[in-house]
């Protein structure tokens, strides 16, 4: 019994790595939501590492646990949700063990977050100036003039036209894309080392999406931040991320660098995702959706969670524990079959 545990532990360490350059290391994270009649294990044993200056994508369908994973990193899980297992170490410090005071220093100062909906992520009763200045002041008292100057520079940084004039406007006076820029400016105001982006482009239209993603990539390079980008859109991943984790039903199915994942997916679920999106230079009669629906999170299938929808599933997929295993250097898959 204990041998099995150690073995499991080894595998996790293997996935997470022990390299010194890791900025963020999430190990065996488990998050559950206790509802009156049932418990939803939204995240069930997720491990990954984000290196310094790396952009790491988490992709998955709705309900796969990607947003919960992302919010867990900043400990933004509220009752009835609870993180009940795992460690999240940022720069060697365990975020889950931090006191409220340490946590609030890390939030905003070192880890910042941008949210999905630019319509609700800005406070409607405060001007943009007030909202940016507020985060600047949190860092330490600065004069009004200096604060204004820095706010203007931040807005310039995120490509806001006429930043000086727009400072004293309220969020509703901005378009969706511009609000998203304001939000990014606020997140960057204290020069974080890690930026968490929870579906940053879902609520804006495609042209704006492209602009925002390019902006994020540019800023990440310029400021040398690590980036965790959560999305359901493989196109966004392809455009933005160095490495990707594919999540399904609260677990990571496959993890690899972006090029490898797109060229050479190992897990049937990743393959299914690839086949369900249109691609350039490839003429296909039709897109193939993955059959079936994501599982009921209160009543998960045994064995591999993807087996009811998997075309390759056999009896051995229906039972047992499916951890990530190494299939190539820096390429992990939770599928026990060698499908190539």
């Amino acid at each position, binding site marked *: 019994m204990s041998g099995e545990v150690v073995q499991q532990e080894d595998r996790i360490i293997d996935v997470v790595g022990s390299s010194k350059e890791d900025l963020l290391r999430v190990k065996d994270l488990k998050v559950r939501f206790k509802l009156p009649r049932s418990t939803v294990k939204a995240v069930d044993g997720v491990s990954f590492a984000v290196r310094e200056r790396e952009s790491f994508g988490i992709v998955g369908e709705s309900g796969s646990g990607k947003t919960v994973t992302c919010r867990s990193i900043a400990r933004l899980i509220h009752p009835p949700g609870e993180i009940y297992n795992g460690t999240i170490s940022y720069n060697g410090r365990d975020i889950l063990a931090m006191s409220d005071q340490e946590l609030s220093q890390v939030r905003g100062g070192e880890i910042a977050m941008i*949210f999905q909906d630019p319509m*609700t992520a800005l406070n*409607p*009763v405060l001007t943009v100036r007030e909202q940016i200045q507020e985060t600047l002041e*949190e860092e330490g008292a600065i004069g009004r003039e200096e604060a204004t100057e820095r706010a203007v520079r931040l807005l310039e940084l995120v490509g806001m036209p006429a930043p000086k004039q727009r400072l004293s406007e309220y969020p509703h006076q901005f378009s969706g894309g511009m609000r998203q820029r304001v939000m990014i400016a606020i997140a960057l105001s204290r020069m974080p080392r890690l930026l968490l982006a929870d579906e940053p482009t879902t609520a804006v239209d495609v042209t704006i999406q492209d602009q925002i993603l390019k902006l994020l990539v540019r800023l990440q390079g310029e400021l040398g931040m690590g980036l965790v980008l959560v999305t359901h859109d493989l196109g966004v991943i392809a455009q933005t991320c160095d490495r990707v984790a594919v999540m399904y039903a609260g677990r990571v199915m496959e993890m690899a660098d972006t090029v490898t994942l797109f060229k050479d997916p190992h897990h049937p679920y990743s393959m299914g995702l690839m086949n369900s999106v249109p691609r350039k230079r490839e003429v296909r009669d039709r897109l193939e959706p993955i059959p079936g629906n994501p599982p009921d999170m209160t009543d998960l299938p045994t064995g591999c969670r993807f087996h009811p929808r998997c075309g390759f599933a056999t009896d051995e997929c229906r039972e047992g524990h499916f951890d990530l295993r190494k299939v190539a250097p820096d390429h992990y898959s939770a599928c026990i079959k060698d499908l190539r």
Partner: protein
Amino acid sequence: MTALTADKPTGIAGLWQSLNRKDRLWRRNPSLFYGIVVVGLVMLVAIFSRQLAPYDPVEQDLRNILAPPSREHLLGTDNYGRDVFSRILCATPLDLTVGVLSVVFPLLIGIVVGMISGYYGGVIDNIFMRLVDVVVAFPFMVLIIAMITVLGPGLMNVIVAVTIGSWIIYARIVRGQVLVAKKLEYVMAAKMSGFSDMRIMMRHIMPNVVTTAVLFGALDVALDILLAATLGFLGLGVQPPRPEWGAMIAEGRTFLVQAWWVSTFPGFAIVITGGGFTLLADGLADVLRTSTREV
């Protein structure tokens, strides 16, 4: 870059802009306009009641009781020969004070309790909400009358009793709004900026949730003036000989057939004041609600 959404700011800023806009307020928002006018007038009367009143409100003239409205006594005299018009004017500050204060205190308590309860949830929320349940369990009027019976009649005690009886409504309104607001992303964003709970509550949640409670309060002023009058009518409010609208109606009802003016005119005063506040609340609701809805 032009704004894509309607250029209507929110909350207090919206109200300020609405009042400062060049086009005619009475055409755009007649309720607000007439509400402000009526309430403003009533307040002016309250401030200058002593100067405006032609007679001393408690001076009796027993040779001239129940005199009908005439040139000397604009609204007639009551059963002690006191000038009804002067008494109505001099009752204004009193009734307004009761109406406003018995909204302000519950509103403040309700906001504090509702914010804490909604924001922290869990045990604290449970304690406060069970306390609310206890107060709700009593019928409002019964609670108030019982409390005044214990505390003794009088202006201050009316305010205290109404405060104890009605803070729960504000607490519930605010709590409900906080429950919604604290799940919004800007609150999460504020948390992600490392702000303290106190700061998040005061600066990020409160301005967005008090609107509904304040609107309810503006309506409640009218009801509380009515309540003060009711208690005055029952003899539990302001004690004679100090004039109070409800008490005046109560006193006059015995002579309603011979001298209708003694009861009727204080009634008009209540209707006008209550109506003014209702219009004001209605107009404010238009401004504050439309602006928050568009966000």
